[in-house]
């Protein structure tokens, strides 16, 4: 079998905030850039985020996620980035070639620089009954409700009090579902306090120090037995959906296939390709940015994308070293700012650990 081969200067896998920012940084330095994404629309997870974002103006703070996605897409198209949607990258080979399934078939794309901005995937939680229909990832529920206007259930139990669990709970309420509870094994809420209070004041009960014992039902979830840890008494909640918001892990299969050195970081969500502070992996012409390089916020993903784009165009010979360094030091400053505060500290430490590993 012989596949058509396309030669490009630079390819970005993933059109989320990291990917589009990488492409923008590169195209502004004169590079030829194609962005590949398996979805029909650009923006990655931003497309289903309907809450206003934190951060500063540079990161679209105060705007809703889908609005930020639309703006980045407009900028990309305006600057001449080729956004190739409905195009799934199936493989990334040690020689640096990408195998892509597009609308017209499978082909090979050979680029001198490749940025992997593939994002993250949801972690899961297993318990008796978790295979019943109605149990799903919180991200899946968010996709159903915000992109397709379909409720995952009328009465939903959310598992996990991190930002994802809190935000998706709020969005389920916005769509008209009832959230019968938000449960966490921990005795404290994991996400931002403002997200917690937004949900709390709507009247949603929180079950902290609780675990799911089992989900019950015939053709789908009908009720859930939960238990306070160590107390030995359970409660039966009537619910027709259970959403699991128990963390994200970097989606780094392509990096592993490319032969990048993989490292494990609990703080950053799991296995990810080793990279330096300039988003270079240990393979030539191969960069990583955003959640694929460790799970953090969208604003961080944007800055990491810019960083990767700058490093790529420097290595491609389109930007002089000093100029690249100037651009990078600005990005570094923003990254430091975003990783400030009590929430960013752990991520900052984990990243610094990684750069030196």
């Amino acid at each position, binding site marked *: 079998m012989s596949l058509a081969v396309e030669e490009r200067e630079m390819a970005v896998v993933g059109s989320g905030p990291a990917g589009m920012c990488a492409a923008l940084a590169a195209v502004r330095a004169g590079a030829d850039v194609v962005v590949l994404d*398996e979805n029909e629309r650009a923006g990655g997870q931003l497309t289903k985020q*309907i809450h206003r974002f934190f951060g500063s103006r540079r990161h679209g703070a105060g705007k*809703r996620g889908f609005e930020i996605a639309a703006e980045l897409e407009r900028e990309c198209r305006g600057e001449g980035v080729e956004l190739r949607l409905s195009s799934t990258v199936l493989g990334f080979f040690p020689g640096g070639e990408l195998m892509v399934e597009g609308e017209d078939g499978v082909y090979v794309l050979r680029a001198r620089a490749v940025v992997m901005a593939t994002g993250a*995937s*949801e972690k899961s939680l297993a318990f008796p009954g978790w*295979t*019943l*229909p*109605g*149990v*799903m*990832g919180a*991200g*899946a529920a968010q*996709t*159903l*409700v*915000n*992109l*397709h*206007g*379909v*409720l*995952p*259930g*009328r009465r939903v139990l959310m598992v996990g009090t991190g930002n994802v669990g809190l935000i998706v709970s709020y969005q389920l309420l*916005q*769509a*008209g579902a009832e959230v019968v509870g938000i449960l966490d094994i921990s005795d404290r809420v994991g996400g931002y306090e403002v997200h917690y209070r937004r949900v709390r004041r709507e009247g949603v009960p929180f079950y902290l120090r609780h675990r799911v014992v089992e989900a019950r039902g015939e*053709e*789908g979830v*009908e009720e859930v037995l939960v238990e306070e840890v160590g107390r030995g008494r359970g409660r039966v909640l009537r619910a*027709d*959906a259970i959403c699991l918001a128990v963390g994200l892990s970097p989606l780094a299969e392509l990096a592993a296939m490319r032969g990048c050195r993989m490292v494990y970081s609990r703080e950053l969500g799991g296995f990810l390709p080793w990279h330096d502070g300039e988003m270079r992996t240990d393979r030539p012409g191969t960069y990583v940015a955003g959640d694929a390089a460790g799970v953090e916020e969208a604003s961080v993903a944007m800055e990491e994308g810019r960083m990767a784009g700058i490093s790529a165009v420097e290595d491609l010979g389109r930007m002089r070293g000093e100029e690249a360094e100037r651009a990078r030091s600005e990005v570094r400053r923003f990254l430091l700012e975003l990783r400030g505060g009590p929430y960013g500290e752990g991520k900052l430490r984990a990243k610094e650990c990684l750069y030196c590993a």
Partner: protein
Amino acid sequence: MAEGERVSGRVERHAVIESFSGGREVVIFVDGAPIAAREGEPVAAALYGAGIRVTRHASKSGEPRGPFCMIGRCTECCMTVDGARNVRACRALVKEGMRVETPGREG
């Protein structure tokens, strides 16, 4: 569940979102029965919108399974779509008159 109460369904009002993925309303057939769907939305979303949560049955135990990830990874929504087997219903988009079969459903 109370008799006849639907566990899922369509969002009726939304304060922040103007439009959802699907286009005009069409009819598709699930195990032979017609349901309303919107053209261009994922089949799995159309099923949920019609209150159908089961997309396949596990091959050994026969337990019901439903969409879990909605991004094409978990493969729990693999159905037979217009005769093609193992199609992920969260990735396949609705076309008018589409015929969808639930694998492993007895009878």
